[in-house]
């Protein structure tokens, strides 16, 4: 490998180094503060190394990994989200009488796997990094060993993720049988079709199974069954990590694949994706309407949000990658803030999951209520929040390339979303009904968690009022992946 290869890989090397440093630190001295500090320092360093890696981009490091502007942008987004999740974890774990240090090790390895996913241009690296992310998540979901809900969620996630990985692997094997290559950029090219091409059925079945594998991780309809239980059972910081880092990284892979090929709007694959996007938007919003548990509500609404994101991909216009990246960034900020508030208001006895637990939050903890309100407004897409800019770009991309049917579905289902997001805000504004609810246990405020929450609330407003710098960064980096 050349020195420039190491420059391009620098963020990953730092993340790996941070994981090893945390491991060694745990063996020498168990200290929650030290471990969390090392982890967050590692994440900051990896983030700071991204511009250095960008100087070497675009660079293909071995056939497995390609570091380009697109990779760097998504790595930045994922590392920032992991940083926020680590910030929430500190206060959350501090309240529990458990061993806390290993959590950060798993968080770092999961982040490493997620960061390599956008760089993957080969089925081998795609599968390995996805497994690295998933295996770390098993441990993170079940981390509170005494919470039976968490263990149940981890076992469900273990089984379903293994099945979806098996689908992905089998699909990759079928594609390899037909085309003789595992490189994502070559499997659909005409020359490998001419060289291989045993049978079109092999290729179609292979692509279908890969789509099932990816669809499971993104939890789009009809592969969405797992998501409410996992979000509900996992500790709130882990739910935040799942909702952002895990799903965002897999979505980045999808953007990468879409950027390599222009899928013709007459093909069967296109029709399947249109149906998935439309049904996800409808089903996610309808199911979220019925929830009284805020984590389940966010889980169902995330199905809808990834349906919205698919609209940008299917639009396949000049703005589609910009729109998808911007929407993903806006979604990250809002959903991190929402789960951060859930982590912050949860006591040592259990999490505040029911909407009833949030009644009168404006009076009890106005800061947390304010952050949650801004997150909900952003998820709706109210002007002056990040979500509005994201949705506006999605609609522009959708209407600009005449997938008007999906654009209409997006508008209609967003209107449904208005109802349940506003209900959360209303519940917080209602006077607490003191007689039928036991007093919430006093919760220690975590200063670190509050700082992260403040930064996220600021991010929501900043993206909503003054998005130009972020859009410029996206156009300079992420959009470089575009073929047109």
């Amino acid at each position, binding site marked *: *490998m050349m020195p420039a290869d190491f420059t391009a890989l620098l963020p990953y090397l730092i993340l*790996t180094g941070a*994981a090893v440093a945390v*491991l060694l630190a745990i063996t020498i001295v168990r200290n929650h503060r030290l471990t969390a500090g090392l982890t967050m320092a590692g994440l900051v360093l990896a983030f700071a190394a991204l511009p250095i890696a960008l100087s070497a981009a675009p660079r293909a*490091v*071995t*056939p*497995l*990994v390609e570091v380009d502007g697109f990779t760097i942008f998504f790595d930045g987004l994922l590392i920032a989200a992991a940083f926020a999740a680590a910030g929430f974890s500190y206060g959350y774990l501090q309240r*529990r*009488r*458990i*061993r806390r240090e*290993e959590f950060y*090790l*798993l968080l770092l*390895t*999961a982040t*490493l*796997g997620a960061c*390599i996913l956008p760089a993957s241009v080969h089925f*081998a*690296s795609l599968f*390995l*990094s996805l*497994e*690295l992310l998933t*295996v*770390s998540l*098993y*441990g993170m979901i*079940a*981390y*509170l*060993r*005494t*919470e*039976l*809900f968490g*263990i*149940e969620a981890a076992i469900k996630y273990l089984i379903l993720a293994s099945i979806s990985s098996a689908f992905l692997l089998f699909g990759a094997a079928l594609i390899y049988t037909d085309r003789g290559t595992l490189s994502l950029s070559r499997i659909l090219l005409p020359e490998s079709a001419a060289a291989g091409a045993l049978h079109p059925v092999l290729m179609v079945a292979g692509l279908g199974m890969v789509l099932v594998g990816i669809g499971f991780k993104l939890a789009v309809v009809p592969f969405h069954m797992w998501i409410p239980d996992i979000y509900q059972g996992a500790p709130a910081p882990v739910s935040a990590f799942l909702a952002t880092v895990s799903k965002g990284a897999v979505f980045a892979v999808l953007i990468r694949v879409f950027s390599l090929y222009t899928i013709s709007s007459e093909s069967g694959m296109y029709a399947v994706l249109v149906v998935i996007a439309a049904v996800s938007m409808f089903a996610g919003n309808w199911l979220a309407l019925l929830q009284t548990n805020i984590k389940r509500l966010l889980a169902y609404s995330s199905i809808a949000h990834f349906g919205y994101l698919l609209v940008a991909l299917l639009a396949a216009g000049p703005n589609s990658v910009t729109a998808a990246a911007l929407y993903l960034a806006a979604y990250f900020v809002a959903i991190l803030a929402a789960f951060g508030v859930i982590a912050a208001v949860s006591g040592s006895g259990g999490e505040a999951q029911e909407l009833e637990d949030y009644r009168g939050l404006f009076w009890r903890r106005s800061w947390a209520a304010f952050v949650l309100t801004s997150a909900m407004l952003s998820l709706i897409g109210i002007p002056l929040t990040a979500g509005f800019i994201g949705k506006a770009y999605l609609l522009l991309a959708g209407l600009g390339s005449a997938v008007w049917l999906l654009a209409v579905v997006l508008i209609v289902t967003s209107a449904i979303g208005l109802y349940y997001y506003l209900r959360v805000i209303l519940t917080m504004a209602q006077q607490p009904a003191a007689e039928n609810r036991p007093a919430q246990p006093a919760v220690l405020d975590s200063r670190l968690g509050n700082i992260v929450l403040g930064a996220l609330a600021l991010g929501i407003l900043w993206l909503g009022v003054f998005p130009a710098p972020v859009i410029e960064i996206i156009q300079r980096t992420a959009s470089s992946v575009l073929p047109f």
Partner: protein
Amino acid sequence: MNVVFYISGATAVLTTAIAITRRNAAHALLYLVVSLLSVALVFFTLGAPFAAALEVIIYAGAIMVLFIFVIMMLNPSAGNPAGGERAGDAPLRDWRLWIGPTILSAILGLELIYIFAGNAAGSTGAGEVVPEQVGVVLLGPYVLGVELASILLLAALVSASHLGRRALPGEEEITEGKGGS
């Protein structure tokens, strides 16, 4: 060589089908071992002797034997009147229990003797992949994959050790009444 391939392939399909339909976990695992052995022979006939050796050593050898021991130690059907006979109780005299895997393994063994007697030179695949080539590719273009796999194992190890260890004094323990759904 083609004959060897088809017999091994048919054995693999048959044993896998039996393995997933057994009600007794120990019996299913015995068939699964035979299934993995026949897959190893398939690899061999396709010109991948290294993959065949790994399949035998790691899957049929290490992992499956571990599974069988774990199931025998845990004895899942003990105390469950509807669960059929206990895995460790099957008397050796009852030939119906062990005759199937034995015959199928014997077929695979005969195939192996047939190959080593030199009757079946060459492979049905595109060519033979020797271990040296595997090593060169793993540490060449796939070196990042190897590194990723090492971190993957670290993550799995840390998760397993965290979930599996005993609770320390003063640590939270599972209390009654905190049931899952």
